[in-house]
């Protein structure tokens, strides 16, 4: 479920509000450079991440300017991961160890040899594993600087912030009570340092 369909969670960020005049030049190329690439059937890569069309997770071409929906830039971050179920890995390792012991007439396999077997089994199974695809929508209002990203997972959000920086060369600022307080004081024309003087309220202290 993303922001476009059903219910979702999201994290908010602020991007630079004043963008350079030539900001849109080369934007398509930059986005295409960091677009999603399918995991190759023959590769042993465990994951792949990149941008896809927010309205179609299978469209990663960015041939046009489908990401531009004035005043928004909207895309999805797609993360594909191959995972081997731990029980399957254990079973295949046990079978491989048994075969080797029989072939080499061994009673016992040293720890290092067992680790090598496990790694080779893992790589073999990885090629057979079907990647699990997930998408996380991003809506960036370039007029206000508000960026909404459809995940609240710290790991996914970190990956998003890094990819956003590489794609747009812009650092995102995460929203939290402090930054929201700063925005409020900015609108009031007051100094953000007023927040530094605050301490937690003791509601149940004798008054």
């Amino acid at each position, binding site marked *: 479920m993303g922001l476009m369909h059903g219910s979702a969670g999201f994290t*908010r960020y602020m991007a630079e509000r004043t963008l350079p005049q030539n900001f849109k030049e080369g934007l398509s190329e930059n986005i295409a450079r960091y677009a999603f690439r399918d995991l190759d059937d023959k590769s042993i890569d465990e994951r792949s991440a990149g941008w896809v069309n927010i309205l179609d997770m299978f469209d990663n071409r960015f041939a046009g300017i489908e990401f531009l929906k004035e005043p928004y830039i909207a895309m999805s971050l797609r993360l594909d991961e191959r995972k081997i179920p731990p029980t399957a890995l254990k079973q295949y390792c046990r079978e491989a160890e048994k075969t080797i012991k029989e072939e080499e007439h061994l009673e016992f396999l040293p720890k290092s040899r067992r680790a090598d077997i496990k790694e080779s089994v893992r790589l073999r199974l990885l090629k057979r594993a079907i990647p699990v695809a997930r998408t996380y929508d991003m*809506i960036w209002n370039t007029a206000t600087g508000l960026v909404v990203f459809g995940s609240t997972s710290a790991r996914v959000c970190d990956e998003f912030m890094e990819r956003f920086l590489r794609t747009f060369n812009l650092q995102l600022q995460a929203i939290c009570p402090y930054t*929201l307080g700063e925005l409020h004081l900015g609108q009031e024309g007051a100094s953000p340092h007023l927040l530094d003087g605050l301490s937690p*309220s003791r509601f149940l*202290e004798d008054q």
Partner: protein
Amino acid sequence: MQLLERVRKTEFLGREFLLWLWFKSETEDGIFDLGDKGKAELWLGGKITLQSENERGVETITCTGEALSMKEARFALAEEKEIRQATVKLAIGDNQWSFVLDSTWMNFRSFKAPRVMNDGEEDPDGLFYEKAFLIEEAISAMDQIYSSFMKRRLSPDWATEDRRTIGQWIRQGRDGD
């Protein structure tokens, strides 16, 4: 002070904001002025998570139900537990949103916006703009309400009035009033 240190030292503001929202919705009908956008009605309903940290470690309590005047959650407040996240219902005009607001990063979880008429088949961009508008409208309303909270929190009246009345309300919860 570095930004990260400032962020860490003011984390309590998110918890106090959720408490203030609950207090306002219980005692003052939860009506908030959004300026030229009219008025918003807000109440807490669904799940609320409270937490305290003391020498015994971290203690967490989660209460679920529509009636957040529920005794257990109110009692937890009186035991000096603080709200970590709460399900917020927000209504502006005919539109109603539901989401779980997190006190640390002000994240919106389980966000449900009003149903849109456009199914996206014929006009996918229309669906996008409608969804984006509804997301931004909820965010903008919550930011304005947070701004109202900050205004009170930074005013001298907070210590003399708000802190006292919220304290009384918390005590009433313990006494079962």
